[in-house]
């Protein structure tokens, strides 16, 4: 109800595109080079300080442009305005859409020699058609982070399959009606994509010279049915995560688990530090007993942008941080990330477990086991649209009590229509 200029809405879209972003690096060719660097993990400052002290000729200037989604949005806008930073951390999910929008620079020639530090599957997350667009930084092998003490107290075994997860959810509810095993709301697009991949679904894949979209493939629709049953039987919540509401439940011990990925402990610790010591991590439940495959949820790579005047120096920082022993020590100790490189993952095994679960000595050993079994995922060029439509459609299905699989189908249709309109070759009818 505030008074605003009549046409401000039309003006905003245009002017934001012009005004946003900060200046790209400029340097005198003789003197030291200054590189702009966007990253959001806590502890990035310590990493930059360490580098700057050791490299007087290549100085890094850090900015925090918000978390994964937000940072990518700003990066795209800044790039269109011609003043993107030299270096930016980007989630694997949005990397293809940024490549299509011509944001990252192909850095195959600069970073090809560090490829051996990564497994093939991880390296594939930043390589498209043989061109490398980023150095993988961290990965998120999916895992179940749970309240060890409360599972024990209620006499419920920790589930190893999704069928056991359903039984555990029911047992939890019977033992303590105020407690719920987990909340899996529509906003957890990455989770649903991950468990669909685990079930054999392929939300995006490349089929010869064409894209194939499988958000509504048979495996994914069965995943939708399974979680719909849990929700309608009241065995899981579908309320958003990390709201004051959710955090209160986590603190009170009435939210028993977060099926997500190995990065979850530091997130939980930030909202419920007093619960440290009560948590543990286990591999994510499986669709088929005895299976070991899981997908990734989250994870990011460091890219050099097209706007950079010093791509070689920028790539040098990216490889130092992610493929050197020194860099991986900082990733582990300062940023609490699970490194993407095999080197970093090996180093992690001798690290102390996260402070949320100091008693779990095998945390990084378990993480390494899971990571070795991850299924490769291909993300399409319009994941943001898929995420947005998925959230809205699944939210609608939950509110109206309509089948969840309809939401998956609606997302599939919207994604295919958008890709066709943009001009991609898509094999779906």
């Amino acid at each position, binding site marked *: 109800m505030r008074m605003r200029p009549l046409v401000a809405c039309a003006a905003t879209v245009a002017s934001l595109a012009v005004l946003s972003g900060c200046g790209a690096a400029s340097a005198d060719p003789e003197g030291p080079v200054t590189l702009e660097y966007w990253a959001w993990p806590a502890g990035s400052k310590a990493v930059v300080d360490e580098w700057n002290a050791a490299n007087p000729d290549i100085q890094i200037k850090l900015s925090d442009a918000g978390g994964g989604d937000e940072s990518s949005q700003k990066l795209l806008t800044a790039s269109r305005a011609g003043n993107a930073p030299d270096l930016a951390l980007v989630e694997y999910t949005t990397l293809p859409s940024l490549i299509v929008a011509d944001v990252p620079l192909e850095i195959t020639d600069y970073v090809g020699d560090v490829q051996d530090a990564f497994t093939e599957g991880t390296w594939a997350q930043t390589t498209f058609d043989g061109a490398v667009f980023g150095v993988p930084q961290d990965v998120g092998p999916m895992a179940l982070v749970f309240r060890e003490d409360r599972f024990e107290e209620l006499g419920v075994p920790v589930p190893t399959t999704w069928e056991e997860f359903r039984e555990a959810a029911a047992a939890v509810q019977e033992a303590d009606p105020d407690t719920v095993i987990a909340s899996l709301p529509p906003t957890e697009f990455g989770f649903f994509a991950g468990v669909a991949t685990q079930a054999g679904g392929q939300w995006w894949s490349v089929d010869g010279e064409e894209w194939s979209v499988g958000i509504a493939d048979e495996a994914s629709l069965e995943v939708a049915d399974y979680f719909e049953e849990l929700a309608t039987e009241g065995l899981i919540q579908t309320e958003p995560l990390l709201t004051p509401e959710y955090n209160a439940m986590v603190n009170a011990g009435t939210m028993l688990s977060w099926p997500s990925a190995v990065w979850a402990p530091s997130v939980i610790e930030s909202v419920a530090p007093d619960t440290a010591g009560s948590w543990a991590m286990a591999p994510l439940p499986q669709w088929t007993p005895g299976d070991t495959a899981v997908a990734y949820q989250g994870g990011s790579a460091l890219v050099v942008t097209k706007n950079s005047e010093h791509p070689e120096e920028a790539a040098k920082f990216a490889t130092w941080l992610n493929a050197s022993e020194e860099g991986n020590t900082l990733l582990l100790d300062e940023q609490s990330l699970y490194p993407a490189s095999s080197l970093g993952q090996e180093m992690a095994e001798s690290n102390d477990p996260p402070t949320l679960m100091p008693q779990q000595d095998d945390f990084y050993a378990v993480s390494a086991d899971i990571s070795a079994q991850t299924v490769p995922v291909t993300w399409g060029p319009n994941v943001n649209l898929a995420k947005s439509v998925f959230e*809205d459609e699944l939210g609608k299905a939950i509110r109206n009590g309509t089948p969840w699989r309809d939401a998956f189908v609606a997302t599939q249709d919207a994604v295919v229509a958008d890709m066709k309109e943009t001009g991609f070759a898509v094999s779906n009818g």
Partner: protein
Amino acid sequence: MSTTLQPARRRPRRRQVAPYLFTAPAVILYVAFMLVPVGYAVWLSTRAYRIEGALLGRKTEVFVGLDNYVAVLTNPEFAAGFGRLAVYGVIAVPLTLGLALLFALVLDTPAARLKRFGRTAIFIPYAVPGVVAALLWGFMYLPSTSPFSYVTRALGLGTIPFLDGPGLFGSLANIAIWGGVGFNMIIIYTSLRSIPGEIYESARLDGAGEVQIALRIKVPLVVPALVLTGVFSLIGTLQLYSEPATLQPMTSAISNTWVPLMTIYRDAFGTDDLPQAAAASTVLAVGTVLVSVVILRIVNRKRMGVER
């Protein structure tokens, strides 16, 4: 002679330049920050990002004419957003204006005490930025932190569904009313203060009470102020964004396309479709101007008719 002539000649010239000099800052700012961006947005709305052939080709800008407008006008979610705005507006606009008028009339009665304090107290919420207000209210709506739900639970009535179903409209309208009443009240109050006191004096001599004076004299005389605040409120409704966007992470009842401006934001910054967002913005802006003009026409004609 020449010394006296020259200044005389210059004076008229200076007078011609002065008005332009005085208006120049406003005109330059208006052109640079309003007309140029609007023009750019309109131009952008006829473009689109398209890709050629390969699996991960690069997007290039192409001209697509009115395609974006067709997409906007045939998008059922965009239309549904206007539907939700209408429900919200029906609750928020009359209540904001009604309360603003009521407070203004109460503060204007001779019997009112603590006028300065009352005026400031009612106006203060307007000084709270929209996002901050939405956050504050959000905490008061969430079941576990809501003081209202705490009381109703203690009384055995259960939690109030502030952020679900139809309650959501009332909750959002409440934030806008809380923030908007003060501003509108000041406009109406200022208009009330400009009514000459002699009119009230003669009404009192004729035996009119305070209520009669309020309804028969004050309300008809502040109609222009009511029209003005009404149009502002309507425009504010069409531009609803910060309240639902701020509450969105707290509830799954608010979709990414809940109101038109949220759709525009998503297209522009979420899904990389700036041209589509520009087209939707243009539609919204033109629609807003049209609605405002129509309402002002109707109201003015009615008032002219009454005066005749």
